């Protein structure tokens, strides 16, 4: 009956169209090009297939341009689509991150797909769709829009993981990722339903207001339980997506089985997107459930702290004895999820800057590292073991040096970008002055040192071991360009972070409610 009423209440199509043009130009461009690419696929001969990639890049470039325009245009948050979509600094910064991730991934993929003999347009179109999903996620202001875009991203990623359909490992990885993914989606939904049930709202800010009102009215205890349960279920889904312990177990398997270029993408894009909605939901929607660590009130900050501690430690320790480069990087990515959570836990400007700038630089350093791994994949060589890097310095010194810079950045050694990120994350925790959080920070820095050990195994292999095989790396211009760009960015952010911090402050200003 009410739905009837809703339908009867004539939607103002003009307003919606204006909203779309005003708020969603980049997303629409990305989707448009995704569809183009999908169609183009049928018109291209096998030799021309690379054009799909170039077209996708063009699409992303176009989206980037419109995004740049939006940066200029938007100074405050703009809401549209009946408060479903919000475009604010936070969303824009994350959209930049996703676009960069997508561009880099495509650049990495071209040669890789040739080697795998799977050069097809749908791959690029899927990446574009996933990117669109992620961009919507960043803009989501409502549980519903967040859920839909989340699923758009997730579903396309499942397909991408399964992309090598003749590869048993790819199948298996996709199956695991898929099953666990929708399992977590179910949990996510269940949690959302609880929150909805409690507040009768799906809009994040309204949820926050209602919860605050409930707290003020000293609502019965049961409401507190429901809110907590909803929060925990939502958090579980988020933990799953960012691969935090103990919801991380899909991660190594999926990363190992998926095509390497897809793994690279997954480790950056969806993870950043998950963090974006994590921050959105928990900071915009559930600030009242934050709690603190003084023992007065429990809330998500404690949960996040414990999970973060577990994640960093587990990820780093499990990575120590890995011999597969892809699995090793998967565990590394798990541990980074732990570090990133610190930003949310700290809950101050410094921590948020840390979260965003770390995700930003993570694109460069992690995709860079994956790019080098991608280049290891040659016709006859899987190139997935750490040993395969042996003596890289002799065969391809540039690659070895760049890989070293990426790895040092992942470790957080200055003057690389990773240090700047870690600096803010740690500083955020210290700024709180809370003893538990400082203890967490100590754990984090010790983990940093542990992580050095396995990153250094790559360095050791590259610089200090003898060459194992002589076949040249699978390099292409686009791959080289990507890696060089990533290296330059990693060093630039590390040495002169000032503009980049200013850039991320766009996002944090929103989180702080400024």
């Amino acid at each position: 009956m009410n739905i009837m009423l809703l339908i009867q209440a004539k939607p103002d199509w003009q307003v919606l169209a204006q909203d779309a043009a005003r708020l969603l130009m980049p997303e629409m461009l990305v989707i448009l090009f995704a569809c183009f690419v999908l169609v183009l696929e049928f018109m291209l001969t096998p030799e021309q297939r690379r054009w799909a990639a170039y077209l996708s890049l063009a699409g992303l470039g176009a989206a980037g341009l419109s995004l740049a325009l939006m940066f200029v245009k938007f100074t405050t948050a703009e809401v549209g689509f009946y408060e479903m979509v919000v475009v604010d600094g936070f969303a824009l910064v994350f959209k930049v991150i996703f676009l960069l991730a997508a561009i880099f991934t495509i650049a990495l993929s071209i040669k890789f797909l040739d080697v795998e003999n799977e050069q097809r347009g749908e791959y690029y179109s899927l990446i574009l769709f996933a990117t669109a999903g992620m961009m919507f996620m960043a803009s989501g202001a409502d549980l519903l829009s967040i859920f839909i875009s989340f699923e758009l991203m997730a579903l396309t990623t499942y397909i991408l993981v399964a992309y090598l359909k003749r590869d048993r490992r790819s199948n298996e990885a996709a199956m695991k990722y898929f099953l666990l993914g929708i399992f977590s989606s179910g949990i996510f939904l269940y949690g959302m339903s609880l929150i909805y049930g409690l507040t009768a709202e799906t809009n994040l800010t309204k949820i926050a207001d209602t919860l605050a009102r409930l707290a003020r009215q000293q609502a019965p205890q049961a409401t507190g339980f429901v809110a907590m349960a909803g929060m925990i279920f939502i958090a579980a889904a988020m933990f799953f997506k960012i691969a935090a312990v103990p919801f991380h177990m899909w991660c190594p398997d999926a990363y190992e089985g998926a095509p390497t270029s897809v793994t690279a993408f997954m480790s950056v894009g969806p993870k950043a997107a998950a963090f974006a909605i994590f921050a959105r939901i928990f900071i915009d929607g559930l600030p009242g459930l934050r709690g603190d660590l003084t023992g007065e009130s429990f809330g998500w900050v404690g949960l996040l702290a414990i999970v973060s501690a577990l994640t960093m430690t587990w990820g780093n320790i499990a990575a120590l004895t890995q011999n597969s480069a892809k699995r090793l990087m998967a565990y590394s990515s798990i541990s980074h999820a732990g570090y990133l959570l610190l930003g949310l836990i700290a809950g101050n400007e410094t921590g948020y800057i840390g979260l965003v700038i770390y995700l930003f630089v993570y694109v460069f350093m992690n995709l860079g590292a994956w790019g080098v791994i991608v280049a290891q994949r040659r016709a006859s060589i899987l190139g997935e073991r750490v040993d395969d890097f042996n003596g890289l310095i002799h065969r391809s010194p540039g690659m070895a040096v760049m890989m070293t810079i990426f790895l040092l950045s992942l470790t957080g050694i200055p003057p690389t970008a990773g240090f700047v990120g870690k600096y803010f994350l740690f500083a955020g925790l210290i700024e709180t002055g809370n003893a538990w959080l400082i203890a967490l920070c100590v754990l984090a820095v010790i983990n940093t040192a542990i992580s050095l050990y396995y990153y250094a195994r790559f360095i050791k292999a590259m610089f200090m071991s003898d060459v194992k095989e002589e076949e040249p790396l699978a390099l292409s211009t686009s791959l080289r360009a990507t890696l060089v760009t990533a290296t330059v960015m990693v060093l630039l952010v590390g040495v002169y972070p000032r503009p980049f911090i200013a850039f991320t402050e766009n996002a944090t200003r929103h989180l702080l409610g400024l």
Partner: protein
Amino acid sequence: MFLKLVWLIPALPLLSAAILGIFGRPLRWSERTISWIACGSVFLSLVITAGVFVQYRAAHWPEPYLTSEAGGFPHSFVWVPGGDAELSLGPRAGQRATFRAEWSYQVDPLSMVMMVVVTLVGFLIHVFAIGYMRGDGGFYRFFAELNLFMFMMLTLVMGSNFLMLFVGWEGVGLCSYLLIGYWFHRADAKAASMKAFIVNRIGDFGFLLAMIAVFSLFGTLQFTEVMRLAADEAYLPTEAFGMFGMASWIALGLFIGATGKSAQIPLYVWLPDAMAGPTPVSALIHAATMVTAGVYMLTRTNVIFMKSPTMMFVVAVIGAATLILAAVIAFAQTDIKKVLAYSTISQLGYMFLACGVGAFTAGIFHLFTHAFFKALLFLGAGSIIIALHHKQDMREMGGLKSYMPVTYWTFVIAWLAICGIFPLAGFVSKDEILWRAFTTEVIPGGRWFWFIGLVGVALTAFYMTRLMALTFWGSPRFVPSTQAHGLSDEPAPHEEPRESPKVMTLPLIALAVGTAVAGFVGWPPALGGSHRFERWLNPVLYRRATNAEAMAHHGATEYILMVVSTLLAAMVMAAAYHLYIHRKQTLQAIVEAIRPLYIASARKFWVDEFYESVFVRGLTLGFSRVFWRTDTRVVDGAVNGSAWFTRFSSRLSGWSDLFIVDMIVNAIGFGLRVFSVAFRAAQTGFTQNYALVITFGLLIATAAYFIWGS
């Protein structure tokens, strides 16, 4: 004029050492050039010393002359400006004192005596060494090091503060190390050099701390200042006998240093081994000068020692014990230089005994005379050794009297002197010590010390006569050597030993003259003298009433004691002569009768072995090994465990490339790896397990919130 040149006295030998050390080898200077430079520099020092002596005596005595009076560099300069400090001991504790060590020299009666001894004996030995070291491959090096020693020794005796004394102290130790190890290819030399240095270092440990304590108490290291302040009863009170206060602690530290340098119990063991060095070195460093630095230091700081009768007693006891022990060991030694070495230790014991009973002047006087006759003995021994082509075993000597008359006769003078035969130098100084011990009021038990000294006289007379008998008298037992000694390029030598060249015998004669007349410098009033030596030195001493009285007092007892000791020495000498020359069977019988004692003496009472096994191998090296093991392979268990674990999980290859060497860190590393393997094992590959973990995670989080989160 000469007083302005004081700084040159040590500087000249240093310059010569530097020139020889740097250019001697590359320019391939001849032995003649090297000798001229080396001896010339020392001779110039000697001349300046003489000039300084004359001038100082005329213009300054009894006040000390400090080179800082003459101005800045090169006379003196601020050496170590260490900043401000707080005194931490004594009545001025907590007050500010600036640590500011000067490099400056001090000429006072005591250092004057030492300068004369060092330059004079040093010069003679330098000359002797020209002959002794002829043909040695490292001629330039030898003289460079010997000159360096001269510099260090002169710094030691001329330094105006403790720190400079310490410079010389360590410096002579270094030179001693270098010169003992001069023939470094020889196993005994290389071991002996190191032993000497390290034993000295142990002594320096005490000296260093005592020196620091002196600064912490007085706020200065300048001798004049320290002694002025120390003499103040309010500042450093005199302690009763048996008390162990501030003065005693400082004195103890200084005395530990002295025992190291002057080879007293328990640190005497290095000196006999040090005979591995060339004989001029033994004469200069290990008889005449360096080893007496301890006595010099005790006298220099006599104010502090005099404030502590306890430590004085300790010094006397150590001196007495050393003189007996060393003399007993000297009985059964067969190496001529070893006998002389133990004799040196024994004589140093006398000097310490003198210091201990408060007769510092007597100690220094004995130091003075001893420098002559012991240098003479060593040089004589060197002359013999050269003649016998580096044979040192007395059992292969005998009857050298007729072959080497100059050496023999000079040696005889020294022999008589050391045995204390009237009127030679040894007699005068030794008798002085005995008399002072007999009458001492500084410490109790003076007569016992006198008696020990007397026993020492007898022992000295015996072993020295034995030495004479075995080397010069009797029938020759040496086999004419058919091959040259290791280093010399000389062709196979002559069949029979020959008197040494003039360059060696002249110093012998000079020293013999010194030995004969040196005693007259301090001729006692009892025999009509005027104690000139003692009066000369008195200004540096901490005068107490008893001291002055003892000087004035002499009577029948003194003459009796003189006669007793001289007669004793003469009788023992005669008996020994008979035993070794005419009554060999009796000798054999006696040796058989006291065989255990004889062996103990020959084996030096196993002190070396004891030190070696307990301190060196036992404590130091033992701890060293234990610690090292802790450091590297502590967790053998962990290593073994890891080996087991490696086999157990052989599929996890490549993880043992970095394995566990240090204890804790690697235990952590190991733990991390174990966890790593465990964590990875959790990744079973079964999707449902993953889902289970997710579910559990969810459940635990929810449950935790429902239990604690209200």
